[in-house]
Each structure stands twice: as structure tokens, then as C-alpha cells.
């Protein structure tokens, strides 16, 4: 196939290509330069580069791992809690910790449930497809964004001052963050939903409520549920840490273990947290599968 044929077209292309390549390379270079500067600055500020790692930092890491080690003895693994080296000795406060974990999970569930309902209500006001009034939409839009800028801890700390220590403060804090976190995705789902079904209900003579109930909800429910399930997992993870500020749950046990320098207990609680969260993930996956299976039939 003759290449020299239409050099005009090819030439024009090559010129343009060179231009674009140059511009692209320049952009990449500038971006890399900015990133490097930012990286060095942040490394400096967070003291990663200040060099003072103390003496024998790796030895300290090894020592740290040693302190977490429960020193299990294979022969005594299944012995009672009095025997040093058994699993029971390692998890000596298991009932107390299990109860605290249970509270953490309860916190997450209640927070997610209430947060979902509130977020759904607000999202109806926020969505273009449901609310015509621009004023209402604009005023409700800033609320979740504002709440989302703050980490849940701030809420937890303030709420502890308001309602006292204990899981109530933590649950309320989680509810706020969950509500703010879900409102935006919900409103986006509502806005991106196909208006067709709603319009056909309207054409058949249905009022606003009927339109939403029959034309919108079935469409958006699965998408919304995906986000709700994601938030359940987030909340379970977050609730375990909230206890540190006194907001209830396993966090307080963690702080307690450290107060007595019981690193192996800390490890034990971390393992329990891991198992619970993994369990929650698996459970939510199962529920999701079954729910979506049912939805098909509907």
C-alpha cells in the first residue's frame, strides 16, 4: 500500500499530533512538579523527613509486635482462663467485650435506620424530579454538605457534652453523618431516575403521592439500598472507634486496655472487631442477594 500517496493529509496529522504530544507532556511535567513539591512539603510537616527516628527504630517495631503477642502455648490452647497461654486467658474479658461490641453494632443499625429515613425525606425535597420549587431545593441542599464536612468525631464529642457519655451520643453522631452521607446520593438517584414511569402514572390520573409510590420508588429503591448497605458497613466500623471519646461501644474497652498497657488484650479486641465487621459484610451481602432476587419477581 503506497505510503507516499497522500502526504498532505498525513503531514497535517503529524503536525497536529506533535502539537498535542508537546502540550500533553508539558501538562504532565507541570503536574508532576506540583505533586512533588506538595509531597516534600507534607513529608516535612508530618515529620517523616526530620530524621529523628530515635535509636534502633526497627527494634522498637519488633518489641511492639512482641508486646501484642499473646504467647499462646499449643498445649494449653483450650485450657481455662486461669492458665496463661490458653485462648481463654488471652480473651479473658470476652463477655464484657462481646457486650460492648454488641452495643457498637446496635449503634450502627439504629443510626443507619434513622439516618436512611431522614435522608430519604430530605432527598425528596432536594430532587428536581420531585420538588418543583427551586427555593426549597437550594435551601435544603446546603445542609447535608455542611454536615459532611465535619468528621463524625466532632459531633460525638459535642453530643457527649450534651447528653452525657454512653452509646446514645455515639448513635446520634452516627445518625447525623449517615443522614448527611446518604442525602446526596439519594437525591442524585432521584434526579437521574427515568421520569417515564412517573409520567405514565400521571397520565393515568394518579396524584403526586401515587406517582412517587408507583412510578418512582420501585425504580430507585435498589440503587438506594446499595448505598444504605454501604453505610451500614461504614457505620459499624465507625462505631467501634467512637467509644474513644466516650460515646459508647467497644472503643471504651480499647482505651481501657491501653490504659493498663495490655497490648495483647488490644490485639484480642481488634480480632473481635475484625470478625464482627466481616460478619456484618457477609450478612449484608446475603441480604442484598435475597432482596434483589425478590425484587425481580415484583
Amino acid at each position: 500500500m503506497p505510503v507516499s500517496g497522500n502526504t498532505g493529509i498525513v503531514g497535517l496529522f503529524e503536525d497536529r499530533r506533535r502539537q498535542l504530544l508537546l502540550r500533553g507532556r508539558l501538562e504532565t511535567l507541570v503536574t508532576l512538579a506540583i505533586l512533588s513539591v506538595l509531597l516534600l512539603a507534607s513529608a516535612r510537616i508530618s515529620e517523616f523527613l526530620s530524621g529523628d527516628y530515635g535509636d534502633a527504630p526497627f527494634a522498637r517495631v519488633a518489641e511492639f509486635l512482641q508486646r501484642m503477642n499473646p504467647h499462646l502455648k499449643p498445649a494449653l490452647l483450650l485450657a481455662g482462663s486461669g492458665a496463661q497461654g490458653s485462648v481463654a486467658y488471652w480473651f479473658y474479658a470476652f463477655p464484657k467485650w462481646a457486650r460492648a461490641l454488641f452495643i457498637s453494632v446496635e449503634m450502627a443499625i439504629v443510626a443507619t435506620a434513622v439516618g436512611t429515613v431522614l435522608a430519604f425525606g430530605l432527598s425528596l425535597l432536594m430532587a428536581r424530579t420531585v420538588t418543583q420549587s427551586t427555593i426549597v431545593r437550594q435551601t435544603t441542599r446546603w445542609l447535608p454538605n455542611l454536615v459532611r464536612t465535619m468528621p463524625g468525631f466532632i459531633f460525638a464529642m459535642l453530643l457527649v457534652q450534651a447528653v452525657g457519655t454512653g452509646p446514645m451520643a455515639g448513635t446520634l453522631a452516627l445518625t447525623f453523618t449517615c443522614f448527611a452521607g446518604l442525602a446526596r446520593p439519594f437525591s442524585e438517584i432521584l434526579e437521574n431516575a427515568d421520569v417515564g414511569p412517573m409520567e405514565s402514572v400521571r397520565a393515568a390520573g394518579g396524584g403526586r403521592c401515587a406517582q412517587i409510590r408507583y412510578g418512582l420508588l420501585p425504580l430507585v429503591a435498589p440503587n438506594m439500598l446499595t448505598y444504605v448497605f454501604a453505610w451500614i458497613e461504614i457505620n459499624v466500623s465507625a462505631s467501634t472507634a467512637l467509644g474513644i471519646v466516650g460515646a459508647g461501644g467497644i472503643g471504651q474497652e480499647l482505651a481501657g486496655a491501653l490504659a493498663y498497657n495490655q497490648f495483647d488484650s488490644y490485639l484480642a479486641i481488634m480480632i473481635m472487631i475484625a470478625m464482627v465487621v466481616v460478619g456484618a459484610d457477609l450478612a449484608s451481602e446475603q441480604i442484598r442477594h435475597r432482596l434483589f432476587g425478590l425484587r425481580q419477581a415484583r
Partner: protein
Amino acid sequence: MLELHNLRKSFGRTMAIDGVTLRVERGEMVGIIGRSGAGKSTLLRLINRLTDADEGEICWQDRDITRIGGRALREWRAHSAMIFQRFNLVERLDVVTNVLVGCLHRHALLPSLIKSFPAEDRARAILELDRVGMADKALQRTETLSGGEMQRVAIARAMMQQPSLLLADEPVSALDPFNANGVMNALVAANRERGITVMVNTHTIDLARTFCQRLIGIRAGRIVFDGSPGQLDRGLEAELFGNTMLRQAA
């Protein structure tokens, strides 16, 4: 030429291809017709080995390609270019890079990983694009193109592979009639001007009739018709496509 001998392929309990024996001479333009699900796609995909047959042989120029693998397989695939119903271009890459994909098989790993193609290949890509009227969009992102334009780019890419065989799997089913015509004409040009053997799948009989000299009718994985468009009569058409949508009232 291409020879298929007693091909069989099933997916689970469905027998997609049930004993197909076929011979296609060099330079033919063959239209494969049949209902959706009759096995047309599977047939083409068996030829370029995107799917592997359970039984049977495929030979090109007396060379058995049924079980080849590795480098030989990649060269066979380059040799037997395919275009798809949904175009299947890489949408985030620009048009000319999509065309250059057609010469990937000839390039070593390293340069192809950094998208470094020799100037001669780039020039050929532009010229192929020009032949389908897409040269001015060469540096555009493919996702900005319309369906018809994307299929034309796909054809340019196929030509880039310098194939002897072109497999077109329902190339115009997703296009409007105007664009469909354009694409089919491009296929005819490839067949007449470059002597490429073309096998086109379609479920629109009229399209096949207009552009192909030979029609192969497939039903339930078997060839039930093989001849010229003139030989295909109403009765055979009905047998190929059937009609179960409306029950006769009383």
C-alpha cells in the same frame, strides 16, 4: 480458502453449532442469515477462535487452525479481522490509536506499551481513515463519535490488519439505514478492491441479498440454505425465520 468441517459447539445444554460443514473460496462475499440465536455469531467466533469448537476442524489454505495457540493464534486472528455489532472500540483512546491497534500484533511488547508506533504505521492508519472518510477526526476521542462513525473506524482498523478474511458480526444492526448502507459499501469495497474474503452476519435478509453474492442460511446451528440470493424463495425465508409472535385467531 476457508474450510469448516463438521463443527460442533454447545454452551451448556444449548447446541449452538450442530455439525456445520462449509467451504468459502478466496474473494467471496458471503452473507450469513438467520434468526437471533440461530448460531451466526458463534460461527464467526469459531472461525477467529474467540470461541473454541467442541468438535470439528477449521482450515485456512489447507492449514488446520482449530487448535493452534500462542503466537500462531494471534497471527491468525490478525489475519482474520473482525468487526462487531457494538463496535467495541476503546472509547477513551483517540481514533487513530484505535486504528493502530490493528498493527499491534506486529510490534514488540515495550514500544506497544508506551503507545509508540512507527511513523509509517501512523501514516497508513491515517490513509485507512481517509478511505472511510474519518481522517479529520483522527485525534478525537472515540467516545465522541456516532455509531456509524465508530463502525467506520472499526473497518479502518480491520484494514490495518491487512487481513485475508474479514468477519463482520452483525455490523449494521445498531445503525440507521443511511449509515448501514455506508458500512456495507465499505465492506464491498474491501472485497472488490482488495480481494478480501468477507463473511457478514445479518438478520436482515434484504441487506444480505443486496450486497452479497452468496447467502448461507442458518437455523438452530445448522446450514439450511446455501446459494445465490435469487435462489432464496419465500418458503425458505419463512423456514429460516419462522413466525411465532401472533397466533392465528381461530
